């Protein structure tokens, strides 16, 4: 039977967020068209390896959440550990971002250095807020799953929280090429 996993309400948030970020992405390309040299110069200052590392971290965290969802549905005991592993990946992502931001700021590259960096800090910053909220959600999921007496009781919660985390991954999948790969 066709259905959306988890709570319907989370999908209003997810689809709304995807729409807002789509507008962000298109706006980025419009400005890039108008200030091509500024964007090419800005892109060259980013470390693509860190962007790729962050992409792999979020992809792996999504895998862990998908495995956690399966585990909860089949009353498998490892569900909480998969969620913990996903949280670990998310924390690593934040650490990489902190390192990147710190390095840039130390080099004197800030929000208003050029339009490219305004986009960079704002978009990755808003995404980072999503990551932090997502980590809070995953921590809640971990506790509920870990403490659950009845294995099936947490399915809807894990589906809802998990879907939000996949959104966090999905948004970064587009942001990575925009800032780190497009020249």
């Amino acid at each position, binding site marked *: 039977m*066709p259905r*959306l*996993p988890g709570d319907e309400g989370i999908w209003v948030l997810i689809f709304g967020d995807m729409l807002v970020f789509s507008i962000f*992405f*298109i706006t980025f390309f419009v400005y*890039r068209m108008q200030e091509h040299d500024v964007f090419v110069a800005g892109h060259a200052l980013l470390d693509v390896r860190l962007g790729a590392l962050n992409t792999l971290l979020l*992809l792996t965290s999504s895998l862990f959440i998908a495995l956690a969802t399966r585990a909860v549905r089949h009353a498998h005991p490892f569900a909480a550990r998969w969620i913990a592993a996903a949280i670990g990946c998310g924390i690593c992502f934040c650490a990489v971002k902190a390192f990147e931001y710190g390095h840039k700021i130390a080099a004197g590259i800030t929000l208003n250095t050029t339009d490219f960096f305004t986009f960079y800090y704002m978009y990755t910053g808003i995404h980072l807020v999503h990551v932090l909220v997502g980590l809070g959600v995953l921590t809640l999921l971990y506790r509920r799953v870990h403490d659950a007496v009845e294995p099936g009781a947490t399915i809807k919660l894990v589906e809802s929280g998990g879907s939000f985390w*996949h959104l966090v991954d*999905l948004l970064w*999948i587009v942001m990575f090429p925009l800032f780190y790969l497009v020249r």
Partner: protein
Amino acid sequence: MLARLPRPAWIWLVLVLATILSFESSLSSWIGERVATTIILLVAVAKVRLVAMEFMELRHAPILFRLGLEIWLVALFLTMVSLYLAAGN
């Protein structure tokens, strides 16, 4: 033993390979920047589709949602690529 990996693991493998492919594409100079970037954007949208259909499980969603997702993906890709190619070089 490989064949018994759970489905999400295969999806992850494809996503990781696609990421590495994009990373390599951005470095290779022989196919030209515009072609390389078009491929990179296509791969990005394909990865989004995979995450949405498989991890978010939208392949089990009502047909209206799936259709909406496909249309949005095509529209997003075409818009981004058009704006990218229209930029000076």
